[in-house]
């Protein structure tokens, strides 16, 4: 069976230390100001966080006895335990920024973008979602038309993480590049470097949570990029992002574990120290049992997450099938994110009135948790995938 190695645990300690020293003291202010801490990104790069699944030739540490997807999940969990926005910045930076280029890019594209992304000198985004196309990616309206040696892109993307930071270097954009034989849209992925004329980053969204994460809508009007910016083969876009999203689901699951873990620790401490009617509130079973349930949820979420991560690493080593990983990823994502939302509800309830106050981190976790059930496929989409994996009849 799977287990976390001593290396993973050693690494967990370092990331926890980093998060507590570099993130925790600043996060309340960053959150209140919706400030993206650009300076933190290269520090995360120095730790090696962006390179865990990237081979050494591009500055990463992946390989036999080196980094793996499980260690990335450890890092996301530990950052997420202190702040969810910082966790998603890493998760999206690797899963959506680096991964498509690493997996589908040619040598020239990889050499051009990866070293800076791995070092934390740059961030990349993945422009898939549109105002009217999310998991239903066939409905993508953004189109790219070939004109000589260039692609001309027009359309709009929504909710694109890490797309508008001062160090964003490139966004991988999915667009219709034609029509398949069966009449459905042919989708391709194209690299659009930041600053390309015709590529506009819209002002940041006002979000319920994840205030510190950088999220923008993007518009493309006659945006021209060289034909060589096509990522992989023409018409591969659909397959590419399905694969990208599978990994992302496990990463979001790890982020949810961090959220639930934080709630468990905060609620436990509070129940021990806060007194009401002359005794610590944790004496009351109404509080204690909820926290006990919370501990069970954290453990369950963590097991499902790391099992999925382990399967993913085993898949990479050729010992497991894509189908197993997909199924495990959907199960982990569904359970962990719903557990995280429940965990924030319990924790804020334990905190009473203080749980509603922004000076207590549980309030921030409460706001941050909801998106976990939505991003990278809603809970409903996960249930759909799980049902499909079980072989249930499909509409």
């Amino acid at each position, binding site marked *: 069976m799977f287990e976390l190695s001593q290396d993973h645990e050693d690494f967990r300690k370092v990331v926890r230390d980093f998060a507590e020293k570099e993130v925790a003291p600043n996060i309340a202010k960053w959150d209140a100001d919706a400030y993206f801490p650009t300076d933190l990104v290269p520090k995360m790069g120095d*730790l090696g966080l962006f390179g865990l699944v990237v081979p050494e030739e591009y500055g990463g540490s992946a390989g036999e006895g080196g980094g793996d997807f499980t260690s990335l999940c450890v890092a996301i969990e530990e950052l997420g335990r202190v702040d969810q926005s910082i966790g998603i910045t890493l998760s999206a930076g690797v899963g959506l920024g680096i991964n498509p280029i690493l997996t589908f890019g040619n040598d020239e594209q990889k050499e051009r973008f990866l070293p800076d992304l791995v070092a934390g000198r740059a961030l990349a985004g993945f422009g898939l979602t549109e105002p009217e196309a999310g998991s239903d990616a066939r409905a993508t309206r953004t189109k790219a038309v070939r004109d000589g040696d260039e692609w001309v892109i027009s359309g709009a993307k929504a909710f694109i993480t890490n797309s508008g930071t001062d160090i964003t270097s490139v966004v991988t954009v999915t667009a219709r590049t034609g029509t398949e034989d069966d009449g459905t849209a042919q989708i391709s992925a194209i690299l659009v470097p930041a600053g390309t004329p015709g590529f506009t980053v819209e002002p940041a969204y006002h979000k319920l949570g994840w205030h510190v994460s950088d999220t923008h809508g993007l518009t493309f009007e006659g945006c021209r990029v060289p034909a060589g910016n096509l990522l992989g083969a023409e018409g591969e876009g659909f397959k590419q992002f399905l694969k990208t999203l599978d990994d992302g689901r496990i990463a979001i699951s790890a982020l949810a574990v961090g959220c639930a873990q934080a709630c468990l620790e905060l609620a436990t401490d509070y129940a021990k120290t806060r007194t009401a009617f002359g005794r610590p509130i944790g004496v009351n079973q109404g509080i204690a049992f909820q926290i006990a349930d919370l501990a069970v949820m954290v453990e369950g979420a963590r097991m499902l997450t790391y099992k999925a991560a382990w399967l993913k690493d085993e898949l990479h080593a050729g010992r497991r099938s894509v189908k197993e990983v997909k199924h495990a990823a959907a199960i982990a994502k569904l359970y962990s994110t719903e557990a995280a939302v429940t965990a924030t509800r319990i924790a804020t309830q334990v905190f009473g009135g203080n749980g509603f106050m922004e000076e207590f981190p549980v309030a921030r976790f409460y706001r941050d948790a909801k998106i976990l059930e939505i991003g990278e496929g809603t809970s409903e989409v996960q249930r759909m995938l799980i049902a499909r994996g079980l072989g249930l009849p499909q509409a």
Partner: protein
Amino acid sequence: MNIVVCVKYVPDAQAERTFNASDNTTDRENVDGLLSELDEYAVEEALKLAEAGEGEVTVLTVGPDSAADAIKKALQMGADKGVHVNDAAIHGSDAVATSLVLAEAIKKIGSVDLVITGMASTDGTMGVVPAMLAERLGLPAVTYASELTVDGGVATIRRDGDASTQTITATLPALVSVTDQINEPRYPSFKGIMAAKKKPVDTWSLADLGVDASQVGLDAAWTRVESFAARPPRSQGQIVTDEGDGGQKLAAFLSERKFV
């Protein structure tokens, strides 16, 4: 340049630290330990010097089995090798005995150009070991460095005082203790954690160093903790109600206690 960094494994200062009831020594069992944060500055400074030129960094600790974690952390940060002096007889040693063990270990390591230490440990906080160690090794001691440069066989430090700033030089080999102002210690990287597993760590006993057990430990200590008591719970504060004379009441409160 061969650099030895002396580090200490201490109980986490963030945790509830206490003493062993049996012999009044520091309780190292019930509190998680770590590499003393003040020693991280010493490790960082050594690594910077080694990276700037040719150099090898050996990290040295004296402590029980668990102290291996302090070496591990320093190796993860980038030190080249470790030496762990571990002997049951060392338990309860004071600064004098600790400096003896460290000195003998450094002699055994041999051909050392620079010994770097933190300014004090975060548990004992005596800050005397660096000077004692230098004395035993016959090295110049330049302590409380908030800046260090090494050039042409000379170490130059800046020592910040309340009234003045001193620039002090010492010819190598020398011992330098560094403050928490000198640098910003790095976090181990993922690659550093992986690389640390392959780095050599020697474990030496007192016999390996030719130190007699009677010279160290609680019985040989020049000082001992006679008794200890838990910090009294914080007493209730005094609330001054402002009835138009709040300022006067505050001033009276402060002057009564000679704060103003």
